[in-house]
């Protein structure tokens, strides 16, 4: 009896292993035969990537790397760095021409040093042919001055997370789709002592994304398409006033929040509406199923401008020109974006990440749980970091300097009135966009 069980178990496991492992490897070998880019013989690569959100994603990625190595003989060393630290590291590498061959980081970091990036025109085109077109925001992140210097691998959706019961109690059956309704909801929740809260501290992800959403939703922009500074506008003032009235409904302490603060507060049941990736839901499903059942996600409400103005995290990958094996880099990037590699990997990312191209085969992760579905929209609905302006080193500086977040925060805390807050943001923008 026991023996039989064990044997059948083993057989099953082996079969499954063979199916999964064999598929990946088999595909990899076949792919390597026909690949457009033949890795340099004896090449080995190093890749610096952002530190995973979930371990399963990391494991799936390493499997993918492994398959590539077995098929092509190119060894890839992967190292991790928290996503705040990727940019400095990449910058130092770019500056000195030493370091990892490829860097996979956050937002517009390749635009900090476009001249040092290997042109990836061919890879981008080949992917667009298969799965394209690229979403406009993906294109904006990958291209600088019309040239592809990076491949936007994925987006990370950050959306309103809310407690269903608290929303209903505040008098809403469905999550509001416009900014006015959103404010009403927050007010209602505040009244019921089930407050909302959005990070106004120096939170790279949560803070930057929702503040830009609020600014853009009201038609405000830091700079226009020609990098002219246009922050000093009635639209910005409206956005400031709007966020201030939102802030009045927030749980105390949001000015000090970093990316992790709202996760903690939401999971502890002190916070009922916030913006976040899927990480809160994932943690709740694991440790607090009751809370998971009572929570859901919604797309960002649309503001007076009448169209989505979301701002999502993007994860572009670049290869440096100094790499001794540029073809191997290209081959690897194309390989990881290949649907039969990309999709299983994305699935293991458990909804943290979503596609940058519009015609990938439907990933089962988005239908596995109806509460995941919202996060599939990130690439489609997101604007790029610059808003109207092209992604550039300056835009990267605006984000790193928290110009927009600080503008909102200083007004919300009452430290500065609308005019001063705008003036200070304008000056910061002038400093960053000055002609030197």
């Amino acid at each position, binding site marked *: 009896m026991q023996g039989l069980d064990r044997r059948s178990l083993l057989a099953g496991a082996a079969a499954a292993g063979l199916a999964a492992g064999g598929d990946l490897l088999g595909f990899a070998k076949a792919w390597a035969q026909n690949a457009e880019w033949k890795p340099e013989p004896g090449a080995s690569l190093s890749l610096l990537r952002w530190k995973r959100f979930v371990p399963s994603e990391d494991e799936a990625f390493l499997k993918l790397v492994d398959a590539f190595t077995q098929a092509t003989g190119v060894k890839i060393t992967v190292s991790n760095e928290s996503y705040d630290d990727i940019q400095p590291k990449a910058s130092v590498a770019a500056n000195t021409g030493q370091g990892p061959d490829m860097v996979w980081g956050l937002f517009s970091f390749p635009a*900090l040093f476009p001249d040092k990036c290997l042109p990836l025109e061919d890879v981008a085109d080949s992917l667009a042919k298969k799965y394209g077109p690229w979403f406009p925001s993906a294109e904006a992140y990958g291209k600088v001055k019309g040239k592809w210097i990076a491949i936007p691998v994925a987006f990370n959706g950050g959306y309103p997370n809310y407690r269903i019961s608290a929303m209903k109690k505040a008098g809403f059956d469905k999550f509001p789709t416009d900014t006015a309704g959103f404010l009403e909801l927050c007010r209602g929740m505040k009244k019921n002592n089930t407050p909302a809260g959005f990070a106004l501290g120096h939170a790279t992800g949560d803070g930057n994304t929702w503040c830009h959403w609020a600014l853009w939703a009201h038609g405000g922009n830091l700079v226009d398409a020609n990098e002219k500074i246009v922050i000093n506008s009635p639209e910005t003032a409206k956005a400031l006033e709007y966020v201030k009235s939102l802030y009045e409904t927030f749980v105390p*302490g949001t000015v000090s929040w*970093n990316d992790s603060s709202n996760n903690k507060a939401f999971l502890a049941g002190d916070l009922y509406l916030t913006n976040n990736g899927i990480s809160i839901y994932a943690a709740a499903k694991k440790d607090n199923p009751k809370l998971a059942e009572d929570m859901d996600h919604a797309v960002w409400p649309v503001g007076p401008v009448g169209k989505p103005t979301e701002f999502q995290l993007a994860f572009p990958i670049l290869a440096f020109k100094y790499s001794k094996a540029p073809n191997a880099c290209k081959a690897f990037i194309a390989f990881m974006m290949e649907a039969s590699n990309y999709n299983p990997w994305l699935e293991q990312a458990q909804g943290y990440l979503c596609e940058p191209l519009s015609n990938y085969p439907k990933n089962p992760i988005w239908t596995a749980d109806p509460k995941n579905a919202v996060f599939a929209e990130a690439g489609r609905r997101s604007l790029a970091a610059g808003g109207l302006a092209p992604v550039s*080193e300056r835009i990267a500086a605006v984000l790193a300097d928290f110009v927009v977040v*600080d503008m909102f925060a200083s007004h919300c805390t009452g430290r500065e009135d609308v005019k001063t807050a705008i003036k200070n943001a304008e000056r*910061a923008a002038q400093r960053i966009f*000055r002609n030197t």
Partner: protein
Amino acid sequence: MAHTALTQPVPVAAPTRSSWQRFRASRGWAGFWFMLPTTLILGLFLAYPLLKGIWLSFTNTRIGREGVFIGLENYEWLWDDDVFWLSVFNTCLYTAVASAIKFAVGLYLALLLNKNMPFKAIIRSIVLIPFVVPTVLSAIAFWWIFDSQFSIISWSLRHLGIIDGNIDFLGEPAMARACVIFANIWRGVPFIAITLLAGLQTVSPSLYEAATLDGASNWQIFWRITLPLLTPIIAVVMTFSVLFTFTDFQLIWAMTRGGPVNATHLMATLSYQRGILSGTLGEGAAIATAMVPFLLAAIGISWFGLQRRAWQAGESDR
């Protein structure tokens, strides 16, 4: 003058050779060899980067792109930059308040530790613990202790019925400054206390006994004997403390990242944010270079201020 005449025919090269030889036989030569390792290390890894940093501050270098000389432009932009001046103010406030309290508490603790008591060695090593734990990790612990929702302090006060809602420790500018200063004090006191304790032990017990016999009060003893004798070591320790506080980075970075709304940005953190994260190396370097004069002033105050006290107290032999 015959002497000169006699030495005249000696070849011209000789004086240089002999001075070279004299140098080789002299203290200067030995000094040169003894100073070589220190000079090399400080030169290559301190002086050279410092000069390079100053040069960078006059250029518009961005990360990944060579810059060109732009004169004082970076400094001009800083000159009327509110955030920069706020960071200067914060740095000065942080240094002044934290150093003063660290000194007071450190001295008090040193006096306590200097008394005879059981388990002295254990207590002394316990005192040093905050100095030993990696700062960035203790800063993360503090960040949790001062959390806006889960602060153990808010929790205790709420359960004692003293407050109703949570205290927004790191969200209010004044409060946030107090919190980071507290964390800095926590970390800095042990080193000061232990070093001052070492100083206290150099004070000869016979002085105290004589003073006690003369009927001096404890306060008088402290003020007239202990403090003056301790002044040289205080000057050194406080100079160290001012230096390390002024240039602090980790604590702020782990606890607030300069928030709320730049209320706790120090010059060092602002320089990192602008130079590395935003990629404007030139501007970051300018902020870092701007620290030097302030630092000199702070050290001047702590070093010479305290030294003067030493002279007044009769320590003229320094």
